[in-house]
């Protein structure tokens, strides 16, 4: 047994440390399977104190630490580069308190987003970020990636819903920020959200709860082609209407979704939009009417309202599980997370199709269209090396196109390792240097999730990911 494992066992308890190679292999990647590296050990701590003890051990031993929630990252954020110790927070999965008077819940980092939603059912409140991975992904992971979801259009992303965090810093100290606001200092909560575990390990989160809308209407608008649908989205936003959600699925993804969930989408639809309006019942009909009119005006063939609660749920299930359902189409896929200014949506959708044709890679699209956030899914077979290379090249080109449109390479999945080489395209050297300074302030020895988020100096945008 290595001295590291002995120390980890002392820090976190024997039953909370995995070190057998066959068990470590399961932690060699997350939702991004093209980058794999087994960790040196996996620790499943049961308390913040144990997390702190593990951090101190790793600091002493000079070993990197990679935090992990449910391992659903699509950007390789949890891949343990550099023979790291994986710190999986899955055993810290208790909803600690629900405080409706203060519209707040306190959860351990390993609580799944849906677990919190279930704990809140019947209270009349909910946690607004609803990433498509919500069945499994944890609040800690949502915090680390500043996760979004369909309803962020109206309600904002995770950073708008985190009131406080308990975090273990790189020196092993435990600090709490929030939940009471404090103007006497920097907004470290806002900074920690989305920092992908490179600034500290979040162990507890105070989340904002939103009152459930009194009512909502969920619509699906059917379009002959994806260009019309994306144009309608831009027009609705330009008209100054912000629905609760505005989601796009193109023909390719509709076929998969139909096979998986049998919703009954017309097979000849070029694209559909899922639109939701919510709020006091009094205002909904007119809100809906305006949206329906705009959809029709910009080419919707049909706009239908989900008439029953099960139908609405199924519609959302179709949308949320669409990406993962592409396993039915192809043995491997790469999902991108580009975002463009909302008026450029039709343009980027058009460019994606062109890029797919040129690289001979089939691309299907889902999008949080109202936010200008596109998720092109590039389908390939990992056993065909050439196809893999073509898919990677096409993916990179899509993101470069997003940058050219004034957008960004990730809206909600995070940089991880997958997009790290593109950071240099998106940001000027001085901008990246500013981020490096933040990182150094928190973690001078760069032990927390190294190789993620910020590219090392001199990494060319054409390099593939991290230095191996």
């Amino acid at each position, binding site marked *: *047994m290595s001295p590291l494992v002995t120390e980890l066992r002392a820090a976190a308890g024997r039953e909370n440390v*995995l070190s*057998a*190679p*066959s*068990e470590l*292999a*399961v*932690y060699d*990647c*997350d*939702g991004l*399977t093209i980058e794999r590296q087994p960790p040196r050990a996996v620790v*499943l701590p049961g308390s913040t104190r144990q997390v702190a003890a593990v951090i101190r051990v790793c600091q002493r031993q000079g070993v990197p630490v990679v935090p992990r929630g*449910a*391992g*659903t990252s699509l950007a390789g954020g949890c891949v343990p580069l550099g023979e790291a110790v994986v710190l*999986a927070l*899955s*055993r810290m*999965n208790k909803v600690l308190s629900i405080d409706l008077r203060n519209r707040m819940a306190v959860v351990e980092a*390993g609580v*799944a987003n*849906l*677990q919190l939603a*279930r704990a809140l*059912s019947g209270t009349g409140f909910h946690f607004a970020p609803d990433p498509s*991975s919500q*069945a*499994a*992904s944890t609040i800690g992971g949502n915090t680390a990636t500043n996760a979004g979801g369909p309803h962020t259009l109206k309600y904002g992303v995770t950073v708008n819903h985190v009131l406080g965090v308990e975090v273990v810093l790189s020196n092993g100290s435990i600090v709490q920020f929030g939940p009471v606001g404090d103007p006497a200092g920097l907004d470290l909560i806002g900074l920690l959200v989305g920092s992908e575990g490179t600034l500290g390990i979040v162990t507890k989160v105070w989340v904002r709860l939103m009152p459930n809308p009194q009512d909502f209407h969920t619509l699906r608008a059917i379009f002959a082609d994806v260009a019309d649908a994306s144009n309608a989205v831009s027009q609705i936003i330009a008209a100054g209407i912000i629905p609760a959600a505005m989601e796009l699925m193109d023909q390719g993804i509709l076929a998969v979704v139909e096979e*998986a969930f049998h919703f009954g989408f017309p097979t000849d639809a070029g694209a559909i939009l899922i639109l939701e309006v919510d709020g006091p019942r009094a205002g909904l009909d007119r809100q809906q009417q305006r949206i329906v009119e705009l959809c029709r005006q910009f080419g919707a063939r049909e706009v239908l309202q989900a008439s029953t609660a099960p139908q609405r749920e199924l519609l959302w299930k179709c949308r949320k*599980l*669409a*990406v*993962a*359902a*592409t*396993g*039915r189409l192809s*043995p*491997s*896929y790469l999902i991108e997370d580009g975002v463009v200014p909302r008026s450029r949506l039709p343009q980027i959708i058009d460019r994606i199709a062109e890029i797919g044709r040129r690289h001979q890679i089939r691309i299907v699209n889902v999008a949080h269209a109202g936010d200008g956030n596109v998720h092109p899914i590039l389908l390939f077979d990992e056993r065909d090396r050439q196809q893999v290379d073509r898919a990677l090249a096409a993916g990179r080109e899509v993101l470069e196109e997003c940058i050219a449109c004034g957008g960004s390479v990730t809206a909600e999945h995070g940089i991880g390792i997958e997009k790290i080489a593109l950071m240099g395209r998106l940001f000027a050297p001085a901008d990246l240097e500013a981020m490096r300074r933040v990182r150094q302030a928190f973690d001078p020895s760069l032990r927390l999730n190294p190789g993620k988020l910020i590219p090392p100096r001199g990494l060319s945008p054409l390099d593939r990911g991290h230095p191996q």
Partner: protein
Amino acid sequence: MQGNGFHNAKLFTAVNPAATIDYALFQRCVHCGLCTSSCPTYTELGDENDSPRGRIQLMRMVADGHPLSDRMRRHLELCLDCRACETACPSGVRYGRLIEPFRLAVEQADQRGEARYDWFREIVLFRLFPYADRMRRLLLPVRLMQRLGWYEMAERLGLFRVIPGRLGRMAPLLPSRLQTAPRLPKFLPAVGRKRARVAFFVGCVADAVFRPTHWATLRVLQQNGCDVFIPPEQGCCGAIHFHSGDNRGARRMADANLVAFELDRYDAIVVNHAGCGAMMKEYGLHWQDGLQPHRAKFAAKVKDINEFLDNLGMVPPAGRIEAVATYHDACHLAHAQAITEAPRRLLSLIPGLELRELPESGICCGSAGVYNLNQAEMSDRLAQRKVENILSTGARIVLASNAGCLLQIQRELRRRKLPLFVMHPMDLLDLSYESKRPWRG
């Protein structure tokens, strides 16, 4: 821990337990991880080795030539095969078709190797459980003891704990008051307008322990205009053998049922316990021989009682039952057969009944066939979790459509001395048709 923890490497150089599995089934998993939170063992343990995605990776490693270590094996054995992950999986991974043949192959390799004689498996599981008559004879003294009050006393005094191992765990599983009921007839006629001809599947443990539920089911079928045939030659569905690695025994049971049921005479073969139904619906998948088409035809006729009545359009019962109830989704119904709404719809027709949704209803109660006998600790944890959830609903009646779940939930409630009623939906529907109540007053 010895060395790198691998052993039995020799064994599997000869036989790879993943050898019979179509590799494309592994590839269907895109590693998204959305299954993990549906998995009871992952929810309890938080180790991805105990999650469906992790287990698929472990099996795939073996398929790729990695030796099966003891630790890997333990993670795979801890799987309940509840298949909640199949319901959760957007990509349609058939997890059952990976874990079942894999574990079967491991068991078979064990028997070929330095096979230890497992008396429990050989005698209790294979020679006793599948035979309702033998079971009933065995349970006769229990029933007598219960009537005399000795059984409860023994339970209170913890006498069952001196019975070793799995046998000792069986005693408290039995319902506190085993009810007797007359033998089932060969035929029962429809009441009122005739709407269907069905055959009823009786099963083994279910018949020995839950015969009153069988009677209730038959009466409900009659009330719904069904002529019910109960072929006397039928036997166990074979699930106990199949899930314990006795493939051949399972096939023997299945084929005996092919002979017992004259398929063309019935609109459906109705079964009221989910475990049996799930097994029989898969008769067409497990064995590729000359009888396969016949088994597939049989499987197509099998209908769960909830599914059958829901499709038929159930005659609403009239008797009021003013009570709060909650419904637990048996894994073999919800995940293996994708039946979740039908039982809820049927129960909602009972006048006066308030059905409250059970949190984590789709998470296994820990019964899982014979899992509660083989993996005691995890099984207990899951039973406790289930009962906590049940209590949170405030329900007085717990409903489940599977024998194993009924026994498991009942045992945990009894251990905590909680006076809840655990019953099959058909029991409650029957009471409503008969205008009776589950309790007096």
